[in-house]
């Protein structure tokens, strides 16, 4: 994974829970440009543990002077966002992966409808800049609980294509209304909680939208669970995965070379073959096919866990 050591140029609170960070090259060199929807993986050396979290870039895709991300503090999370909020100061240096886009705009579309829930606004901040620059038709629907919590309000331009729905003010997303009457060639992009993505998929299915034009991205942290053991077929070793650790992190801690990219079950890079499974794999990814899941022949170590007797993987 290609990465750069970058300097924290600014850290600013957007809301009580969301902080914006700006990274620049220590010598002021230009950073590679990206496309709206791209993310970077931030490495956080936290004592013994090396945390790696993926964050969507919210800065202008055409601006190589720096990368910006917005981090929501998850107090019940695994510690990555608390590290960013509590420990990272301007002037610090952090290792940042080069941008990768698993949620790019489909530029064959005639129109783009973006639907964001809460902190799911982040990939759209960069996409809106790209859409405005390219002068493409779009509309953005941004749902948040309250204005105080809606970090996106400080990140989005004041343009008529953007519609804000604040549920505390009684303005709820009307997905049926949004999806009705859209012209042929419209694509829909959803980012936010799993429930929002499911609701858009259901509204789309009801109105006859093909699945291929409904795009979504969930950035999920590896869910915690019970500790479990895994046998590595190539070395014969057995490794333990802790309750708040992912299988990918346990493999890395054991010094196993493994390719990865999104660390959120979406990109497919760390897909691993299962050689023997006595028990049940808890699949949490968005990558494997239904067949791969039910046959328990593959696992995504970044997010998925195991419960049962023995699991032997091809690593």
């Amino acid at each position, binding site marked *: 994974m290609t990465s750069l050591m970058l300097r924290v140029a600014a850290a600013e609170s957007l809301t009580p829970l969301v902080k914006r960070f700006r990274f620049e090259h220590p010598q002021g060199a230009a950073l590679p440009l990206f496309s709206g929807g791209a993310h970077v993986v931030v490495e956080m050396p936290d004592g013994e543990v090396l945390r790696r979290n993926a964050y969507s870039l919210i800065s202008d895709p055409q601006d190589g002077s720096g990368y910006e991300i917005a981090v929501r503090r998850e107090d019940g999370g695994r510690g990555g966002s608390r590290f960013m909020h509590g420990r990272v100061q301007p002037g610090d240096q952090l290792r940042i992966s080069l941008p990768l886009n698993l949620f790019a705009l489909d530029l064959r*579309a*005639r129109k783009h409808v973006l639907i964001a829930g809460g902190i799911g606004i982040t990939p759209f901040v960069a996409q809106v800049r790209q859409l405005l620059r390219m002068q493409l038709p779009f509309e953005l629907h941004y749902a948040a609980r309250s204005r105080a919590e809606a970090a996106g309000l400080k990140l989005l331009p004041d343009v008529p294509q953007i519609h804000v729905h604040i549920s505390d003010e009684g303005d709820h997303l009307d997905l049926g209304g949004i*999806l*009705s*009457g*859209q*012209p*042929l*060639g*419209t694509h829909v992009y959803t980012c936010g909680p799993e429930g929002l993505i499911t609701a858009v998929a259901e509204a789309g299915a009801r*109105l*006859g*939208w*093909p*699945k*291929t*034009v409904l795009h979504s991205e969930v950035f999920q942290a590896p869910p915690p669970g019970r500790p479990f053991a895994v046998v590595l077929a190539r070395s014969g070793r057995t490794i333990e995965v802790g309750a708040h650790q992912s299988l990918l992190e346990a493999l890395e801690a054991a010094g196993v070379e493994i390719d990865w990219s999104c660390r959120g079950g979406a990109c497919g890079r760390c897909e691993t073959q299962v050689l023997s499974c006595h028990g049940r794999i808890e699949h949490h990814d968005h990558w494997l096919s239904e067949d791969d899941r039910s046959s328990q022949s593959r696992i995504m170590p970044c997010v998925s866990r195991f419960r049962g007797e023995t699991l032997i993987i091809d690593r």
Partner: protein
Amino acid sequence: MRATEFSSSIPSRPVYAGLRPHGALPALMLAEGAGGEALAELAGADPSVMRRAHLFWIPAGAGPGLAARLRALGPAGYVEGPDYAALRPRFVRALADAHMGTRLYLAGDEGLIGQAMADALAAGMPLEAIDAEHRGGIARRMQCVHCKGITENVTTDPFTCAHCGLNLFVRDHYSRRIGAFQGVCVDAETPGQVPEPQEIKP
């Protein structure tokens, strides 16, 4: 007459999976000749497909009985024309007015399906919203890769380009954008040595 089954070929050769009802969603329907039977069968399987359907009908030799049967299925709109070229302005206008969630049902020979599908895709309709069923002859709509001219109703391989006169080999290579198969000069290296034309098979 049943839907035509084609032998398997290269991946770009279109496969027409047949018409399948998608309920009372808004729909555009376009059928030519024997394709009218496919629409009648579709409505027989699920009459609600007609409720919000606009039907474009090209009789192409099918008797007035079939037209009467199609009208009796009760589509929300009905237009008849002598060929696709004549109906095309209205069909393209209907596509421009259509919204996401609209289904397209196409039934007829490959030339009709190919042209209508190309117009629908150009209008932004997702490929997955289109059902097509091949009925009728297996003549192909061919584009000459040399002069780009289209020759309609090609039934033999090789054939002579109607525009530039080259002898063209009929490939299974199909362009979804153009709605035509590719014809390539068959005697470029040995001018005049043209294989005996064979009838195109499904």
